[in-house]
């Protein structure tokens, strides 16, 4: 049997991007040296030169060059975290609690340890340092201490010669649990005062308004999973100085390091972290998963340890999108203007804090969407329960409320006898409007006033659907085109078509006063007579195309063809997370700023005399916390809008839905890379479709019932319709090149658009997502 090949992580060699032409070989060692992070942070910088289309340049900003890593990916040669291998490597495995709530009476690891080939079995007693970690609040035990609070909570870890053996050893660990009654109802938790955050928003006086129409409804959003295809994975390698080197698929390597080091009882400089190839993220890689565990096992055994979750464990091993229960009351006057909105929003944060606090802030501040309304009363909670912990997922607190407020907008439009588009247009925020937090909608072009009225990008976007007709019902349709597809469930009888709209408003970058920054180093030097730019950041390429974007910015700013990206690791300064649609803005901004500094240095420097380099920290403008009582405050950096129109066919007898078209108008400020941008909109729309009609983690009394791709369905190519996109560029003068974050907004708006279309086809109220066949047939008085 051949020895497994040693697999160097991608990080070992610089990712090289030549444009145009073939990919150059990896750089030789001296040039791949990291660009050191500055000792003290450089002063904050703004994107100089701001908005505008830079001079078009091959492979530069505005073009769609091949991704630097695409060739490796199509050859099966790109190393994902799960592909890492080191000589003498052991496999780690986690024993998880099968109970949502229990006291740990005792743990006996003797039988597991006695198995030949098992090198370590560790419990909470073996944690070298701090016993808890967490992204915002450190309340998540490294390994259970005395009590488990959700099904799947890590209790013990094992290192063994093979993964199989590690799994079998974990089964031999004897844990004596005293079962406790789990609290699984988030409303009960809120009533009992058990929540991570409560955030109200108060504006005007909703109670004293006299409306012409009122709609009050309750909405339920199920628990969605990010389900990235690449499982949680990584490897830890002990170093000679008693430290450890970690290769892991993560969205924010510096935040990982901050959390890991105290738990390991190591100074951060003894831990070197490099981002390993990431198979999608969508928020699932914000919180720690394998990091501390594999490092503990590596330090305990003195050998490299790899961990990789299987699909079921992945469902337990990361946080999910918060399920929500929301009660909304919307009222309008006779002119079709929103009069007041009242909302009670309960998000289920599950057992540990994760990012619930920030998610609640988004849910509250974006609770009515991009509409003007002067009287508001919003109460939002993030409950603590014994359900699986919830945290970051694409859309981050904007998704749940978007489903509710858009459903309300449709219901109120209907009550007023207005079309959904006209009602939204009448209430759309415009330049100078205030959000319910008092934040002024700014950064739009004031010259584009519309008949003396301030320019409303949303009204403009809604208007663009006129040129994009709803697809006609084809004459003789093939059965496979109908709901049910090859299931051959209908010949068209009972099939109704429906059309619906959805609008989403998403904040970009971190909000509420968070010190949000990114760091980039750029070095320009001559290599064999050719000018080469090296870029060093810690920004995670999760699939969104950020590596490509960095090369584009460098080509545009420094007019070089060859750009090499150094490994994304903790030798660079923090880039922040690849989340909140922020990486183009923030690390894009940092790379641009570093290039500008290099350009400056070049003015009196000849590259023949040696390289030039600069490292810059980029910050967006400061934001403010939300007032804890009124919710007022300029809490967001940038706002991004997306509008979807969905067309569906519904078999109203069987409750089967087929989405036949998704048309999307999105404002991205400035198109940085057309192909990557379209990919983000397509992918975001697909995840919104998933939430609308199929994706839900089912829990019963805290137990997950469908932790597999057999039972948790994500959209396949048969579920996705063709998508038409119209991209709008309302530049933001404060952001690099005027861009707006683009990854999340489509995830917000596609869900309500699809549900609205199903309502249009069926006439049902549909206040719960995902919409299931039984929701569509229950009124027929029989179970499907």
């Amino acid at each position, binding site marked *: 049997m051949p020895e497994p090949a040693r697999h160097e992580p991608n990080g070992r060699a610089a990712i090289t991007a030549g444009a145009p032409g073939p990919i150059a070989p990896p750089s030789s060692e001296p040039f791949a040296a990291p660009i050191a992070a500055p000792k003290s942070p450089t002063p904050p910088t703004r994107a100089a030169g701001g908005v505008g289309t830079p001079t078009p340049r091959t492979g530069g900003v505005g073009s769609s060059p091949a991704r630097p890593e695409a060739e490796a990916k199509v050859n099966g040669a790109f190393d*994902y975290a799960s592909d890492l291998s080191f000589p003498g490597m052991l496999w780690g495995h986690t024993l998880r609690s099968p109970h949502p709530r229990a006291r740990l009476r005792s743990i006996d690891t003797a039988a597991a340890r006695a198995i030949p080939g098992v090198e370590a079995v560790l419990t909470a007693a073996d944690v070298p340092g701090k016993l808890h970690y967490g992204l915002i609040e450190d309340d998540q035990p490294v390994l259970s201490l005395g009590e488990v609070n959700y099904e799947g909570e890590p209790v013990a870890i094992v290192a063994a010669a093979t993964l199989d053996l590690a799994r079998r050893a974990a089964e031999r660990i004897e844990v004596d649990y005293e079962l406790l009654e789990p609290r699984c109802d988030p409303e009960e938790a809120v009533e009992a005062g058990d929540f991570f955050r409560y955030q109200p928003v108060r504006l005007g006086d909703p109670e004293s308004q006299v409306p012409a129409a009122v709609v009050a409804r309750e909405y339920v959003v199920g628990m969605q999973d990010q389900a990235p295809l690449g499982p949680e994975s990584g490897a830890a390698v002990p170093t000679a100085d008693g430290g450890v080197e970690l290769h892991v698929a993560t969205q924010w390597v510096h935040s990982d390091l901050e959390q890991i080091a105290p738990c390991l009882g190591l100074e951060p400089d003894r831990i070197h972290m490099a981002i390993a190839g990431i198979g999608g993220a969508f928020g699932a890689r914000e919180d720690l998963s394998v990091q501390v565990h594999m490092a503990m096992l590596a330090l305990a055994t003195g050998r490299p340890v790899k961990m990789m979750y299987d699909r079921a464990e992945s469902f337990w091993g990361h946080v999910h999108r918060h399920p929500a229960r929301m009660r909304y009351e919307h009222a309008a006057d006779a002119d079709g203007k929103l009069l007041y909105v009242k909302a009670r929003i309960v998000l289920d944060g599950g057992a540990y804090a994760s990012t619930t606090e920030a998610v609640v802030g988004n849910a509250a501040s974006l609770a009515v969407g991009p509409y003007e309304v002067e009287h508001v009363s919003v109460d939002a909670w993030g409950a603590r329960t014994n359900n699986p912990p919830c945290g970051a997922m694409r859309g981050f607190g904007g998704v749940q409320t978007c489903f509710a407020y858009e459903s309300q907008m449709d219901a109120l439009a209907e009550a007023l006898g207005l079309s959904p588009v006209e009602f939204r247009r009448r209430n759309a925020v415009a330049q100078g409007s205030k959000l319910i937090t008092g934040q002024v909608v700014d950064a739009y072009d004031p010259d584009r006033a519309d008949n003396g009225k301030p320019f409303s990008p949303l009204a403009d976007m809604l208007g663009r659907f006129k040129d994009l007709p709803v697809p006609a019902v084809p004459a003789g349709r093939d059965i496979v085109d109908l709901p049910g597809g090859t299931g051959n469930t209908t010949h068209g009888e009972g099939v109704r078509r429906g059309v619906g709209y959805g609008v989403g408003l998403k904040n970009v970058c971190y909000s509420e006063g968070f010190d949000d920054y990114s760091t980039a180093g750029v070095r320009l030097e001559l290599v064999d007579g050719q000018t080469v730019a090296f870029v060093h950041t810690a920004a995670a390429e999760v699939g969104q195309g950020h590596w490509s974007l960095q090369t584009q910015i460098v080509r545009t700013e420094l007019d070089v063809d060859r750009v090499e990206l150094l490994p994304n690791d903790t030798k660079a300064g923090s880039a922040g997370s690849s989340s909140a649609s922020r990486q183009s803005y923030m690390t894009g901004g940092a790379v641009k700023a570093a290039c500008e500094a290099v350009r400056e240095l070049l003015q009196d420097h000849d590259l023949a005399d040696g390289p030039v380099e600069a490292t810059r920290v980029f910050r967006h403008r400061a934001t403010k916390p939300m007032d804890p009582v009124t919710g007022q405050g300029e809490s967001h950096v940038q706002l991004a809008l997306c509008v979807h129109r969905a067309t569906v066919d519904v078999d109203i007898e069987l409750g089967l839905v087929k989405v036949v078209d998704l048309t999307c108008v999105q404002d991205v400020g400035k198109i940085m890379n057309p192909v990557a941008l379209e990919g983000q909109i397509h992918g975001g729309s697909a995840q919104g479709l998933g939430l609308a009609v199929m994706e839900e983690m089912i829990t019963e009394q805290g137990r997950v019932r469908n932790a597999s791709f057999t039972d948790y369905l994500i959209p396949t190519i048969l579920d996705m319709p063709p998508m038409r996109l119209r991209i709008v560029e309302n530049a933001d003068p404060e952001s690099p090149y005027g861009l707006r974050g683009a990854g999340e907004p489509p995830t917000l708006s596609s869900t309500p658009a699809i549900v609205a279309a199903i309502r249009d086809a069926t006439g049902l109220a549909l206040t719960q997502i995902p919409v299931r066949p039984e929701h569509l047939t229950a009124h027929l008085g029989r179970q499907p």
Partner: protein
Amino acid sequence: MRVEMRIDGETAAADIDRPGESLLSTLRDRLGLYGTKNACEQGECGSCTVLLDGDPVCSCLVATAQCEGREVKTVVGAVPRPVRDAFIACGAVQCGFCTPGLLVSVADLLDREDDPSDAVIREALAGNLCRCTGYEKIIDAVHAAAEAMAGAPPVRAADATEATP
């Protein structure tokens, strides 16, 4: 138990100690051939798709013990260059975790059909999950690959986007 097969044109042998060991596990964990991906090990995602004697299979569902003397082709050996080029050019690769399996399925499809319609493409790729792309650019890429393989000059997928300032 020793199993000999041909993998991407080369003879390979693996010593299996569990009769149920999957071909996916043998490829990755025993032979260090990481090109084929593991996203579920349940036959649900298609990330592990390989050609076994020319037929696409989920390698996580095939026992290595059944592969004696058989021909296995992974993303490394199964995929014509134009298919890979089209995936890159059309933006069909984001995180890329689904890509090796998808490429094998597309190679198989284009081997059977030289100019598949959208409906045929969707049917053929229904077993390959992708969480990133929403599949639009994958369909573009299949058409572009089909055209390139038909001898036409390589066509870049039409831009669905119109920028409207």
